[in-house]
């Protein structure tokens, strides 16, 4: 397959500031041209460092960064064809909106007339025409964000790098700007790499989600894959929406795993691709919206797993009700019950219930290695 100009490949990318601790540990990743890619992880997981290395504001200790088939390590940002949108925007405080956006063109030596013509087209695109002569301090957060986006996009980069672009905004605005980012990306048709610690943001925007922990990639793939089929406990817990619990394997029969603990005797989990032996401790993930609640004594069909438990708390969420259970000891166990279903027979705190789900929907997770435990 031909290499496109916005294709990015990271090979063995490593970064260490002091030679002792590595913040990025030999990352390998391919991002296709025109993708919206989100790096997702908690603060300090190395995601911003990777972004800054791609941008050229930080040099990798080892490894390659290939953009459009060319290794760009050592090149200045402009030569890479990347543009960065900084966290909290880093707009030039002494320049008007127009001059902020025109800055890169001014550096390139375009005449005032030429650069303002290009800039004004961009200003119109991000709907800032009436505000073009204002200073950044006179703009709202959302407007500043649009200026930052326009400033980064004016040079027609092949890759746009966004460092926590929405974190400075309030909740409502964040949802609105999310839509704008997405439509901007479709408009420009270039690769976006977006760093965030919010899983909501990542799965809403990205074609490709890269989940990171301590300088390593835990899982990379389409948003739906990462959310619905997390590889291990870390990814499942970080993305949320899953109940994760562990148990000691008692037997494997007919491709179904059963567990030794007495409260888990009615649980069966498909083996899937994992290799499991008797006595192994395995993590199991069950989606919170796959869980149903029934009163004790109700007959369940054989293809269902169930746990007996007590209701700890009930939170009304509007379109569903979040019911917290004490089913699995120390692990949090939550059921998302559709609102109408819940209120047909509401549970209150202290009620004994059976949490049940179709056995084939549960998943065994890859064992977390001792290193990250």
């Amino acid at each position, binding site marked *: 397959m031909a290499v496109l100009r916005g294709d990015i490949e990271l090979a063995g990318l490593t970064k260490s500031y002091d030679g002792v601790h590595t913040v990025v540990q030999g990352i390998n990743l391919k991002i296709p041209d025109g993708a919206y890619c989100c790096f997702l992880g908690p603060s300090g997981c190395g995601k911003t460092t990777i972004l800054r290395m791609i941008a050229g504001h930080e040099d990798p200790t080892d490894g390659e960064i290939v953009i459009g088939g060319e290794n760009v390590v050592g090149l200045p940002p402009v030569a890479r064809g990347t543009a960065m949108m900084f966290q909290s925007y880093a*707009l030039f405080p002494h320049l008007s909106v127009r001059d902020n956006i025109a800055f890169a063109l001014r550096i390139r030596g375009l005449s005032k007339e030429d650069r303002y013509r290009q800039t004004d087209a961009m200003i119109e695109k991000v709907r800032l025409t009436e505000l073009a002569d204002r200073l950044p301090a006179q703009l709202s957060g959302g407007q500043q964000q649009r200026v930052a986006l326009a400033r980064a996009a004016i040079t027609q980069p092949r890759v746009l790098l966004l460092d926590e672009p929405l974190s400075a905004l309030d909740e409502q605005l964040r949802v609105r700007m999310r839509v704008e980012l997405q439509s901007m990306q479709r408009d420009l048709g270039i690769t976006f790499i977006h760093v965030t610690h919010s899983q909501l943001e990542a799965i809403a925007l990205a074609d490709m989600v890269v989940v990171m922990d301590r300088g390593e990639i835990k899982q990379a793939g389409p948003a739906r894959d990462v959310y619905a089929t997390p590889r291990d406990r870390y990814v499942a817990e970080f993305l949320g929406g899953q109940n994760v619990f562990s148990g000691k394997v008692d037997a494997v029969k007919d491709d179904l795993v059963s567990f030794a603990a007495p409260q888990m005797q009615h649980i069966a989990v498909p083996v899937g691709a994992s290799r499991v032996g008797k006595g192994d401790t395995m993590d199991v993930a069950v989606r919170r919206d796959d869980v149903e609640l029934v009163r004790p004594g109700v007959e369940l069909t054989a293809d269902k797993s169930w746990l007996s438990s007590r209701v700890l708390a009930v939170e009304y969420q509007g379109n569903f009700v979040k019911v917290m259970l004490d089913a699995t000891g120390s692990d949090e166990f939550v059921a998302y019950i559709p609102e109408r279903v819940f209120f047909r027979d509401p549970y209150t705190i202290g009620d004994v219930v059976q949490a049940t789900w179709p056995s084939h929907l549960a998943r065994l997770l890859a064992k977390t290695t001792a290193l990250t435990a």
Partner: protein
Amino acid sequence: MALSRSTVSWLYVSPLMLVLIPFFVLPILVVLVASVFETDGFGGLIPTFTLANYGTVLTSGLTFNLYVETVKFTVLTWFFTLIIGFFVAYFLVFHVRNPLLAIGLFLICTVPFWTSNIIRMISWIPLLGKEGLINSALLRIGLIREPLEFLLYSSFAVVVAYVHQLTIFMIVPIFNSMARIDKRVVEAAIDAGASRFDIMRLIIVPLSKSGVALGSIFVASIVMGDFFVTKVMSGGGSASVVGAFYEDISVLQYPGAAASAIILTVVLLAMVSLILRTVDIRKEITR
């Protein structure tokens, strides 16, 4: 106990007023009043109202020459302290990565201030003098045959001493305004392809303007209001505005000296307001 809003506001400004009124407003008023009195020639003042003192000062060709001389020193000192101060601050803020080291180096800049003004000035004499270090070194290596006369007791020496004394007044405010420049703003400029020179010209200089203005006010008002350095380092060869009315005082001509002082104050106020007109310090500081 509930205090009314205005009482609270007065309490807030009272410490400042307690300093400003006795130590600034009253002395200025005394000088202002003295400047319109007449002298009896023996140090006594005759209460009256006359503008004759101002007339004498303003119509004298000497006054004009003194101002030219003093402004010359002010401009030269301002220029050199600005260049040195700007680059020292720039180095400390943008090139010293370790903040502890930056603070250490910053403190080193203040070391000359651990000795008195006079000692610092006088210590130039053995260095710049006819038989001083520089001249004897140059003679020894054969670069010159005669000692260089312009080094000491000259305008050159005056400017050297002023620059030595006052550069710190440039470094501190410029350092302060540069330290408030967000490093990411500089990175954003690099991202846009700006060279070092572009960053200096388009980002750092405009964003350090308030520091430059403050430093300029310090330096200009100190040089304009000083006579001692000029007197000592020029060896009496150059005079200054303040030096002249210091002479008046020593011959008990108080009203004339007071009138000169008021005129100088007005000139300084005009200079400062000119600086403030080009840079809105208040806006920059609250940025």
